[in-house]
């Protein structure tokens, strides 16, 4: 199992120095929820400059009619770059990939929808090679999926989880309502009942909502590794450089070494909690309720 890092900026050399050799890069005009996006030319240059690294591309936005023609050309160009994979949300990418006979492996990445093994198998039959599992399922569910599919699986293990996306420019609208200037693209909101903070980020694709507390998947990472998951995915966006300098190597340590003793694992997890100031394990150990009874 490897760590697949979606970097917070374009400094690939810095990431390599942290021990990373697999990258997930945003693609300008085709990526949502991420700050750092690369042009096709920049991706080509990175491929040339770092021939031994693995490069996956994140093309996870909803696509609209007027983007389809340029998408076709972009996919054909990218197919010549010897990439390790393309993450897609919109089924247009899958369909064009099939119609154009492209060779780059595909990663089923419908953010919150990758929740069961039957659908993983369906996408495998459609030609996908990987799936990035939803962050809203439990570790047990992930293990069940693993047992029942031969699709290579990825799990997000570090970063600020995206909770939602709107095509609306909600921050711009709010500031227009306030009759005040919007001075940045990222703002915090707080839900007062639980005193919990979230943040919103706006770009040309709309508005994304994120948890305010960093996901710390260090503990489940041990289990994922033991069960032959392919990649633990890291989204560095909004994380501090100083934290990344320590936490990324720590996560590599988990993957590159054996920790048969529980106390050694506990030490690593404790260290990660201190570094991240977060013990947020998301939904790894906590399932959601879906049936709401009348009297609740």
């Amino acid at each position: 199992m490897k760590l697949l890092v979606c970097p917070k900026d374009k400094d690939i050399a810095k990431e390599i120095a942290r021990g990373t050799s697999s990258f997930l890069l945003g693609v300008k005009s085709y990526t949502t929820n991420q700050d750092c996006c690369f042009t096709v030319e920049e991706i080509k240059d990175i491929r040339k400059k770092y021939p031994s690294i693995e490069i996956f591309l994140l093309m996870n936005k909803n696509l609209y009619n007027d983007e389809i023609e340029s998408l076709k050309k972009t996919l054909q160009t990218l197919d010549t770059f010897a990439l390790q994979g393309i993450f897609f949300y919109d089924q247009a990418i899958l369909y064009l990939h099939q119609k154009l006979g492209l060779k780059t492996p595909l990663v089923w990445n419908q953010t919150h929808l990758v929740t069961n093994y039957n659908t993983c198998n369906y996408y495998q039959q459609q030609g996908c090679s990987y799936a990035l599992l939803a962050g809203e399922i439990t570790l047990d569910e992930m293990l069940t999926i693993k047992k029942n599919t031969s699709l290579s699986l990825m799990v997000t293990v570090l970063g600020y989880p995206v909770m939602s996306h709107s095509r609306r420019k909600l921050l711009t609208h709010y500031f227009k309502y306030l009759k005040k200037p919007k001075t940045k693209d990222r703002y915090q909101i707080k839900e007062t009942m639980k005193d919990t903070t979230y943040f919103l980020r706006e770009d040309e694709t709309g508005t994304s909502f994120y948890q305010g507390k960093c996901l710390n998947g260090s503990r489940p990472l041990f289990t994922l590794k033991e069960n032959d998951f392919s990649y633990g995915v890291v989204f560095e966006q909004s994380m501090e450089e100083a934290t990344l300098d320590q936490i990324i190597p720590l996560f590599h340590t988990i993957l590159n070494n054996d920790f048969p003793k529980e106390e050694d694992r506990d030490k690593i997890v404790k260290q990660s909690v201190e570094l991240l100031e977060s013990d947020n394990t998301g939904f790894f150990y906590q399932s959601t309720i879906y049936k709401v009874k009348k009297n609740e």
Partner: protein
Amino acid sequence: MNRDKIELLAPAGDLERLKITLQYGADAVYIGGQAYSLRANATNFSMEEIASACQFAHALKKKVYLAVNIVFHNEDIEGIYDYLEQAVKAGIDAFIVSDPFIISYICEHFKEVEIHVSTQNSTTNYESVLFLKEQGVKRVVLARELSKQEIKEIIDKTNVDIEVFIHGAMCTCMSGRCTLSNYLTGRDANRGGCSQVCRFAFDFEDEPTTKFTMATKDLNMAHYIKDLIEIGVKSLKVEGRMRSHYYLATVIGTYRKIIDEIYEGTLTEDKIKEYDFILGRVANRETSTHYFLKEADETDQYYTGRQELSNQDYLGYVLDYDAIKKEVILSERNYFEPATKVEIFMPSGKTITFTVEKIMDEEGNLLDAARHPEQVLRIPVFETIEKGSMMRLKIERNEVDENRQIEPSKNEFITK
């Protein structure tokens, strides 16, 4: 104009609502069973009720679509195959699905039933629609974030039946891409537990006085039904499986008239304003057309200070008509008195207006007012009234709607 008449598709949270919407003019209804649909909190239909619903609808030459549109987890698959088979046997005309594995299963095993892709799939372009067509899908319910031009281009390039929402509440975020409910309340938005976090108010950094809200106004496409017919949309969908009987009857009845009058060539600007006014009275929020004409902006949203209006126009549900005494027998819903100007609108589309002369209880005793919900009342009306009609306050369109206030109900609720 496309002469193959467009479908009016209504929501129904239970059998009673289904009957009302079909009687008031829906061509088809969409329902949820007691599993696998995105309104876990609605009453929903048992398999026996699904069968009854299909019998009722088919007798009227109308259709029933069953939503099986949750995002499946491993555990949800257990039982789904039997469920689908039973639903087919019950007579449903189409499944509304978002998971492509379920699509492939239905295609393989139940060729006689149509597959409609739920808006949960957030389908936003023609290539995605073509992909779904290749999987065996008959119809796609498009994402609610598309413009008229985008919808038209999809129809022109795919030859797939396209369904769009025309009325009701809107999500702030893209369907399928929202798990705010999971993170903030632990309820799974994509498995029917959505707690509508997009209607919450939040503190906003550096803005101590004004809460951050993101709630949207409701959708109302009454003025653009002709456009949707002309660009080739196949089905017009009304949101609201959990809405009241009165709301459903009013909204479905009104859109029925709009559609029919467009095809008959009799819909005037004045009539559409009247219909829009009626739709406005039954709504509890302001409305907009959202993305249809322009990119959605701040005018499509609500900010702090909004009030949801409590509608007390609905006065009674017609249980029967006593042709001998020429009295309508109705079940009271909201307070009214003699001399109140009212109208009764009927499933056939007919509406009569009159002033209440007197109100009697079931035994014929005179009452000074109707003040008890569900009390059976008799009111003299000289025209025959259809069963299942509804009586509401007659409010003239020229009355200034902006002055509409929330009034406390004058009904006296009896604790049993």
